[in-house]
């Protein structure tokens, strides 16, 4: 078995990783996190075991990048009037019309990550426990708590 062209990895997993980044960081920082994730993945790619779960590998890298961003943000000054010069990432109608992603941002970080890694990326709880540290049960519980909160802050009374 051999590694396929990285272009195929981007095509297969790029959209899901972007959604994970949005769920964890919100739309403004998601694209930076996506870019840093795939650049780091490209750097490490030749050494990846071809049998590895590529999506779990990418989510692990995205996870570390998101932690880096949080740390950098904690250190540096927070811009108040942040103006982006790229076409606004949050102009995407999918995000704009769906306040679920805002509701996600209000959750504790661990719950938010577990929900993103399990429900958005589709990783099993055992895998998520390895990425986040802690036990599978704890990851499962954090997800259940997160969903419960989202149902009250967001899901209630908005059936579709």
């Amino acid at each position, binding site marked *: 078995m*051999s590694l396929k062209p990285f272009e195929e990895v*981007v095509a297969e997993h790029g959209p899901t990783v972007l959604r994970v980044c949005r769920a964890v960081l919100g739309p403004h920082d998601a*694209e930076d996190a996506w870019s840093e994730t795939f650049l780091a993945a490209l750097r490490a790619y030749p050494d990846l075991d071809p049998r590895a779960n590529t999506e779990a590998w990418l989510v692990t890298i995205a996870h570390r990048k998101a932690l880096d961003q949080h740390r950098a943000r904690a250190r540096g000054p927070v811009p108040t009037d942040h103006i982006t010069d790229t076409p606004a*990432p949050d102009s995407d109608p*999918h995000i704009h019309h769906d306040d679920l992603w805002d509701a996600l941002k209000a959750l504790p970080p661990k719950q938010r990550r577990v929900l993103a890694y399990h429900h958005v990326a*589709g990783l099993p709880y055992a895998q998520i426990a390895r990425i986040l540290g802690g036990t599978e049960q704890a990851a499962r519980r954090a997800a259940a708590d997160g*969903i419960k909160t989202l149902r009250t802050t967001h899901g209630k009374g908005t059936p579709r």
Partner: protein
Amino acid sequence: MNHDPVLATLTAPPPAEEATHRRLHDRLTTAAHAQGLLDVAYRTVDSPLGTLLLAATPQGLVRVAYAAEDHDAVLRQLAVRISPRVLRAPDRLDTAARQIDEYFRKRRTAFDLELDLRLSHGFRRRVLAGLPSIGYGATASYTAVATAAGSPKAVRAAGTACATNPLPIVLPCHRVVRSSGAIGHYIGGARAKQRLLDLESTA
């Protein structure tokens, strides 16, 4: 559970946001190039002989492939033989694409491109390196090509070198024909070979 709007939104497949992904992809290839991580860049180009795949390493153009070779399969071979750091990066192949277009428009008779011949070795590589000396519109026999590469008796090996040319059109193996006058095999098919010879022979 299935009708839970929260779970439904979280688990919905990612929406197709082509503009966003194109922008992120461009950003990735630009950064990859700047950091020396773009080991194989590729693009496709339309030609009268169908869509051609062009691939380059930082050293130069490394592969030209006809559609019949299956471009996905060619990219996978490049991932194995050169590096899995393969990305679509059209900008890196603008010059090659332009020269191939000029060749098919009869505005160009020779290519001026950096080439990376790493996909062929030894005698085959010597054969390929000698091909540009067969002038535009001219032909040579397999025997002549073998002789030029230093082994007059290696006529079959010269044929194999041409049949496995990783850079058809740019390294003009189509100008090598059988002494009998038959045009012989070609990686893009005999019809493609004939069309290239016709293109070069019409004034």
